[in-house]
């Protein structure tokens, strides 16, 4: 048995099991027979095993340097460190699809636990035998797609005859930082997660049960959103630490494309609450969940097809047209299903502007509009080229200009939304709104007087306004509870934090978002950079720092040659003291890359980030020299903190609570 053999065999098995599972779902639906459904459930487990075997075979091939497997020959090198070998499966197309497919089989299998094969569902969030064949069938269809793509188009286990003795290793950009080990996996976990709410939604549209699916898939939506948020943050962090331009977001087409599902999912997360609570916005929810799911494929299409040039476009494979065809068919079929029942999912109640649902709907509209703007900006070069053949690119300024006002409105809504009550506003709410408005105005004006730019001042004002909103809500909840139960405020706070995790968690996430926006505003507005060529021993005074080049050395590592500049930094201003220390920016040369990759040396402090990059080096009659670039950016650290807060908030909501379940039991049957 060789890895290639095991892999090829397992892939075919996974495809077969997925096809069989799909077939069984068909029978279960049309024959209304629980036995087929039972068999389909089991098949999902077999498909998972086969997929795991295939994935394991790829790891096996990589770890044993089996260059007879084409994927290994093309994307692997025996000199790579162990962690690089382990993460190489998602360093290129075929392996990424395999990872995605494997995660899909895992999620399908988890969904199958919820399936009840006879009678009505007993437990919470059970899938009854009417909807289960459809939901499972949708998931099996996605699986069939992935495995068919691998078996027929992008086979990870194609053989190379005769096998080479060494390969080039994975894309150096991916080897340059450990964050690459996690970023793609988190993204895929997020993408795959949306297939479940989508599958439930399709089942809901076909069986005409429009209400319960949002509640049943809330957990999935949250988890997928949490992974996607974490994945995007990891990606931003990676680009900050690797690409060496001191930024974290460049509005690159593929960044944009992966932003689309996140924006749509965020919108869906909020509109689904309105449906859960008031039974409204059903067609919004169907549309948003369809679009989110389709957007995850759109994103892969852009990454893999090479339609639009981007740093992320990892080479074109034969899969572009297939992904496009699949995503378009999914969109067509889903919107057809929706249009079939559109008169039935019309809202019966109304949404008032100044109410919780009004704010949630407003937020959803904002996110949808931004999605559209980002989409248009991303495909615009293609539109222009199609119309008059010119090559243009849409740069960051366009997106920044569009996104800034969006950010302001979003932060405004995010603050007042949770303060507003459902249905219609009550008089006492006006007092809260006035308080918040005052905080916003005072915060902004004080910042302006302090001397910050208008944008930054507004961000400060909005940050304080959001903190105040959360503070107000927590304070009111605690007071009410403490008064009515006669307990201490601390006890009431602890109670609320446990019993109303969803609301508390959302406060945490919102604080994270507000903090992130603040970090973005500051880091965009007050970034300083300078560059100078220094000879060894030379010092350079700039931006409150005294920079001295101590040494320039070359290190041979197994997979690369690194040139390291040793830079000593002293502070000449009070703020600069934070930056003191030794920095070792490097330039890594990988044999397969036509240009060296910088590896910046960054010191994160609570105020500024000090970011040193070795741009160039050389030797002339005066000795060794190095061109060093320093970038000082305020508050970048807080962006990562904000990301962590957002993820922690999501985890807080998702954390299974032992206290809540028994308390809910009387009403649980209707949930």
């Amino acid at each position: 048995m060789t890895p290639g053999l095991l892999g090829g065999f397992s892939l075919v098995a996974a495809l077969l099991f997925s096809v069989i599972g799909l077939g069984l779902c068909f029978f279960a639906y049309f024959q209304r027979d629980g036995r087929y459904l039972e068999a389909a459930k089991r098949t999902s487990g077999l498909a998972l095993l086969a997929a795991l075997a295939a994935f394991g075979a790829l790891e096996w091939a990589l770890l044993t340097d089996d260059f007879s497997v084409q994927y290994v020959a093309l994307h692997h090198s025996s000199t790579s460190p162990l962690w690089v070998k382990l993460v190489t499966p998602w360093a290129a197309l075929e392996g990424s699809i395999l990872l995605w497919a494997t995660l899909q089989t895992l999620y399908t299998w988890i969904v199958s636990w919820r399936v009840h094969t006879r009678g009505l569902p007993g437990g919470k969030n059970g899938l009854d035998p009417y909807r289960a064949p459809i939901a499972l069938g949708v998931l099996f269809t996605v699986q069939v797609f992935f495995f068919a793509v691998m078996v027929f188009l992008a086979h990870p286990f194609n053989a190379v005859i005769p096998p080479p003795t060494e390969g080039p290793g994975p894309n150096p950009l991916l080897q340059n930082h450990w964050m690459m080990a996690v970023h793609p996996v988190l993204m895929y976990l997020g993408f795959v997660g949306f297939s479940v709410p989508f599958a439930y939604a399709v089942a809901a549209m076909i069986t005409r049960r429009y209400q319960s699916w949002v509640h049943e898939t809330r957990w999935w939506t949250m988890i997928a959103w949490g992974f996607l948020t974490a994945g995007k943050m990891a990606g931003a962090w990676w680009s900050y630490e690797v690409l060496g331009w001191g930024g974290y977001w460049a509005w690159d087409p593929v960044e944009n494309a992966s932003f689309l599902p996140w924006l749509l999912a965020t919108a869906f997360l909020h509109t689904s609450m309105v449906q859960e609570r008031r039974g409204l916005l059903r067609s919004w929810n169907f549309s948003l969940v369809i679009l989110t799911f389709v957007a995850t494929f759109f994103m892969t299409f852009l990454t893999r097809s090479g339609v639009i040039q981007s740093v992320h476009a990892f080479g074109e494979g034969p899969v572009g047209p297939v992904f496009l065809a699949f995503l378009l068919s999914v969109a067509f079929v889903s919107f057809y299903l929706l249009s079939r029942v559109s008169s039935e999912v019309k809202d019966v109640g109304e949404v008032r502007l100044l109410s919780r649902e009004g704010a949630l709907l407003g937020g959803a509209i904002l996110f949808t509009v931004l999605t559209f703007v980002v989409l248009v900006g991303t495909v615009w070069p293609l539109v222009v080229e199609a119309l008059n053949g010119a090559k243009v690119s849409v740069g960051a300024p366009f997106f920044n200009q569009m996104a800034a006002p969006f950010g302001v409105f979003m932060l405004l809504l995010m603050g007042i939304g949770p303060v507003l009550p459902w249905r219609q506003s009550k008089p006492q709410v006006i007092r809260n709104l006035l308080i918040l408005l005052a905080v916003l105005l005072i915060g902004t004006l004080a910042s302006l007087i302090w001397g910050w730019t208008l944008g930054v001042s507004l961000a400060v004002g909005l940050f304080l306004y959001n903190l105040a909103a959360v503070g107000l809500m927590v304070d009111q909840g605690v007071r009410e509870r403490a008064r009515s139960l006669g307990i201490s405020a601390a006890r009431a706070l602890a109670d609320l934090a446990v019993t109303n995790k969803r609301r508390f968690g959302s406060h945490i996430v919102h604080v994270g978002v507000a903090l992130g926006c603040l970090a973005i505003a500051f880091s965009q507005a007050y970034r300083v950079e300078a560059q100078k060529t220094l000879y060894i021993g030379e010092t350079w005074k700039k931006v409150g720092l005294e920079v001295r080049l101590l040494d320039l050395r070359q290190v041979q590592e197994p997979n690369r040659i690194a040139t390291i500049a040793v830079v000593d930094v002293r502070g000449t201003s009070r703020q600069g003291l934070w930056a003191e220390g030794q920095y070792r920016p490097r330039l890594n040369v990988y044999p397969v890359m036509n240009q060296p990759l910088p590896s910046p040396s960054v010191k994160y402090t609570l105020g500024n980030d000090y970011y040193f990059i070795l741009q160039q080096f050389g030797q002339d009659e005066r000795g060794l020299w190095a061109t060093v670039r320093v970038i000082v950016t305020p508050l970048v650290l807080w962006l990562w903190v904000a990301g962590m807060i957002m993820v922690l908030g999501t985890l807080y909501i998702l954390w299974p609570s032992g206290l809540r379940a028994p308390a809910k039991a009387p009403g649980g049957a209707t949930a």
Partner: protein
Amino acid sequence: MKRLWPFALLVVLGALLFWGLRRGDPSALPSVLVGKPAPDFTLPAFAPYRAEWGERIQLSRYLGQKPILVNLWASWCVPCRDEAPMLEAAWRQYKNRLLILGVNVQDTNPGAALGFIQEFGLTFPSGIDENGRVWIDYGGYGVPETFLIGKDGKVLYRHAGPLDPATLQELLGKVL
């Protein structure tokens, strides 16, 4: 009618993206060198070629006599392995009407490169791009990469990525 607009939008977007796929390879950026005189280079020749071609191979010595196909390759590059026998066959066939010149770029060590030459029994001359100068001058994108230089010494065509037999024939057809 109102129901139809999502479908209309999908059709437009789908058509646009399919066109984007079919318009060809956007990364096959036409080289800025096309139409310009080929940048000169001098490379240390690999041992098997020294007898016939000298210690160092200088491009300008051969410019203007015959069309030249410059192929950038590396021993670790898998597609180069597909290309090598094809180039060798073309060389044997058109030797007196065309010069094929291999440039070994970004290689890990000269031993591996020499092994590659011996493995495929390459008889067209190859040299080593020691300091990456050729790679930079020619705006290399990724190995393999092939430049076709006309008899007038100007770059006619640049092909990024592996050649297939049809493309190679088409290229040669332009100059032979």
